[in-house]
Every structure is written in C-alpha cells, then in structure tokens.
C-alpha cells in the first residue's frame, strides 16, 4: 500500500489537477500544472515516486470492536509493512530516530499510527504518506469562541498564504475545527484522506466514530475557503495563478465552552492515500 500510494495518485487528485490545468490563466501557472501532469504520467509509467519525499507513513487503523488480533503486536505489523514497502518500492527513507540526534532509521519506520475502535468486525486501513515540505507549514490555532467562523476562515487563509511556495501548491487543505489541542490536529490530518471530488456522501465515508455529524455550514465553508484562497493569486508553485488550492476539506468535533481550536493541515497536490478494508 505504501508503494501504491507513492506511485499512483488517486483519481480524484488527478482529475482536480487536470481541471486546474484547464482553468489556469497565468502562463507560469499553466506551465507548472503541465509539468505536474507530465510528472504524474512518468511516475505511473516508469514506476518511480510522484515526489521524492515519500513521506512519513501515517496510518489510520479503524478496528472493528469484534476483531481480535492474534500472533503478535499490531503496531509492529504495521511497521513491518512500512519497512517492506519502503525498501522494496525504492521509496525514500525519511525518518530519523530522534528529533534532536537525527540518525536515519534506514527503513522509514516507525509509522505514525492512529488507532480507532469502531463497531463491526472489519479493519479499515488508510495509509497516507505525508511529505514534510507541506507538513512544516501546518498550524494549530487556539481561537476564542468570540472569533467564530470568521476567525476560522482567517486562520485557514493566513496559513495557506504563509505556506506559499514552500508547500508545493496547488494544495489540498485539511481543516479540523473543535475538539481540543490534539483532536483538531487529528481531524485535520484525517480530512486530507477524504476524496476531494466534491460529493458530500464521501464525507460520511471517512467520518470515523470519533468525528461529529457534519454540520450544515461545512460545505459552504469549504467552498468559500477554496474560492478565497484561489483569489489570493499565489498560484501553482507559488509563481502566480488562480489555482492555489485544489480542495479544502473540513471536519468538526464538539468542543469546550471556552475554546475554538482550529488545525490547518497543509498538503501539497501529492496528497497520497490508499484505503483497504480487511
């Protein structure tokens, strides 16, 4: 799954890039998008990763509560999968064993694993390798309730602008609103794994047991944010144009009376995710 995720972008991302290439008006923007399209084709045909930063492996494991794992440690099993995928797939090993001492682990492990217990007897595995050019530009804001939806919008737009050319626009932007400090971050990351083809039924698909029912304002908020971010003119590769983002995906969760946490997870167009249910 690591290999597939890194070699083949999902259809929704491809379509969005193609649509962007058609609608782009800036010459530089057009040429950047044309390069990205060609890049995707070369990656598929020649079986090399779409981007050299094949990411840190983020894995969401939604485990049905009737499932019982036997014969070993499930985290170790996931890491073994990452180890094999990154080695056999000629993917880049981008993980260091300690944030300060910084020695490469040599096999891209460990993965960042998010476990969730859900009803049922199946396991849903989502593998979402995340590049750090864009991860570094992600932000968390602990807003005041009085900041309201306008505060949320400002936070998202500011983050996208600050990310600028560093995070390889056109972006896919995951926004987590509510919960607490860490919950909003996980929601934002998870929002990136949702299909970016605009279809709200898809939203239900990704919403795990821990996410709230989708509020009425979510679709409008996503559309408005996408439009406003594209109006900034940052454009593909940050060199000007109208396609700064391909999609803004919002997820929400109840929060405390005193707070309004907002996490903005910036992802580049190389928004990789593969889902398998076993």
């Amino acid at each position, binding site marked *: 799954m690591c290999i597939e995720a890194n070699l083949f972008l999902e259809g929704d991302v491809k379509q969005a890039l193609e649509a962007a290439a058609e609608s782009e008006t800036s010459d530089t923007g057009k040429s950047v998008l044309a390069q990205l399209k060609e890049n995707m084709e070369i990656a598929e045909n020649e079986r090399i*990763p779409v981007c*050299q930063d094949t990411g840190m492996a983020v894995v969401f494991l939604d485990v049905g509560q009737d499932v019982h794992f036997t014969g070993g440690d499930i985290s170790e099993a996931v890491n073994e999968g990452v180890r094999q995928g990154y080695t056999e797939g000629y993917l*880049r090993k981008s993980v260091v064993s300690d944030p300060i001492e910084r020695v*490469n682990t040599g096999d891209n492990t460990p993965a960042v694993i998010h476990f969730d217990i859900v009803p049922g007897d199946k396991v849903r595995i989502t593998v979402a390798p995340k590049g750090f050019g864009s991860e570094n530009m992600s932000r968390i804001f602990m807003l005041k309730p009085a900041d309201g939806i306008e505060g949320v919008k400002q936070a998202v737009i500011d983050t996208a602008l600050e990310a600028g050319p560093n995070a*390889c626009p056109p972006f896919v932007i995951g926004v987590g609103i509510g919960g607490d400090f860490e919950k909003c971050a996980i929601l934002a990351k998870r929002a990136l794994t949702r299909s970016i083809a605009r279809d709200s039924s898809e939203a239900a698909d990704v919403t795990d047991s821990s996410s709230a029912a989708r509020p009425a304002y979510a679709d409008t908020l996503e559309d408005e944010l996408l439009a406003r971010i594209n109006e900034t003119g940052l454009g593909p590769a940050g060199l000007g144009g109208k396609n700064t983002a391909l999609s803004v995906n919002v997820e929400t969760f109840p929060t405390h009376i005193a707070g309004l946490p907002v996490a903005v997870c910036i992802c580049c167009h190389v928004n990789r995710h593969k889902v398998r249910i076993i």
Partner: protein
Amino acid sequence: MKDNKQIKLKLPLSKEGAALLRAGDTVLLTGVVYAARDAAHKRMTELINEAESKGSDPAGGLPFPVQGAAVYYMGPSPAPPGKVIGSAGPTTSGRMDKYTPKLLDMGLTVMIGKGRRSDAVNEAIVRNGCVYLAAVGGAGALLAKCIKSSELIAYEDLGAEAVRRLYVEDFPAIVVTDSRGECLYDR
C-alpha cells in the same frame, strides 16, 4: 512577466552570466549540480567553522569545490534497478538559510530549491551576485529524467541526505531571486 525569456544555461555559471538573469526567466540547465540538503549543509558548515578556527582553508575539507558551484536542495528517492536516480524534486530551501550566506560568500553561485529565502540569504545573493532558482516542487519524477548521471560523493551514512554530483541536461527551473535581489515571489 512579458519580458522574461527562456534561456539555455550551461553550468558552471559565471558571475557575469548570473548578472544577466532576471527574476521570472525560465532556464534549462545543463551541467554539474551538487545535491545537498539539511544534514549535509550542517556538516559542511561545521567543517568550515572548524577550519576557520584553526586558521586553515575553510573550503579545504568540503566534499565539492564551492567556488562557482551550483547546489540543488534535493534528497532523491533510491534509484530502482536500471535507473540513474529515483524521484528527484526540490526540497524547501528555507531550511538551508542558516548555512547559506557563508557558502555564498565562499563563491557558491547558483542555488536550486523551492520557497522563500531569509533576508540574510537575499542580502548575500546581492552582495555576491548569485542567483536562486526554483524547480517545480512535487515534479520529482519529471525532473529525474533530466538527471543523466548521479554519483554519491560524500556522507553516505546520511542516506537520502548524502552529497551527490549530478549531471543534468535541460533541467527546467525559474529564476526566483536574481543577482539584484529582485524576487519573483514578491510580485
């Protein structure tokens, strides 16, 4: 951007050549570039500082001659069998800012990466008449096709972050900061 040109550029680039480039020009690079990113920059800077404190030649211990060189901020994915290199697009240049002014003062002429640079780097670009170019981030598979040879020359223990000598042909990039300090991202 009307006046910008597409230019075929041979590396190494002289300071006179660098002075002719303008922010927004697109270039196709042919010649040698050295791939180095965070960890390699840190090591090179440590070597320079050590040499300076001993009074010896600061460039002496470096893995490649910095004078006149082009550096590409890039750590490739491994080369599959039969390929020169794996995916090979630019990484965010800003992380190298802390180490860059020193290298520019030592003669480094061309930098290739993506994203904004610090004021200190921009000042060093103008002071030394250098250029900063961007390649398209996320186009690693496409850019790899322009890399005709790749040789690991130092710091093998750093894995993807080791220093490599690359020979590129018609490698597409755009001038972001020209030798006068004009920056394309500011437009």
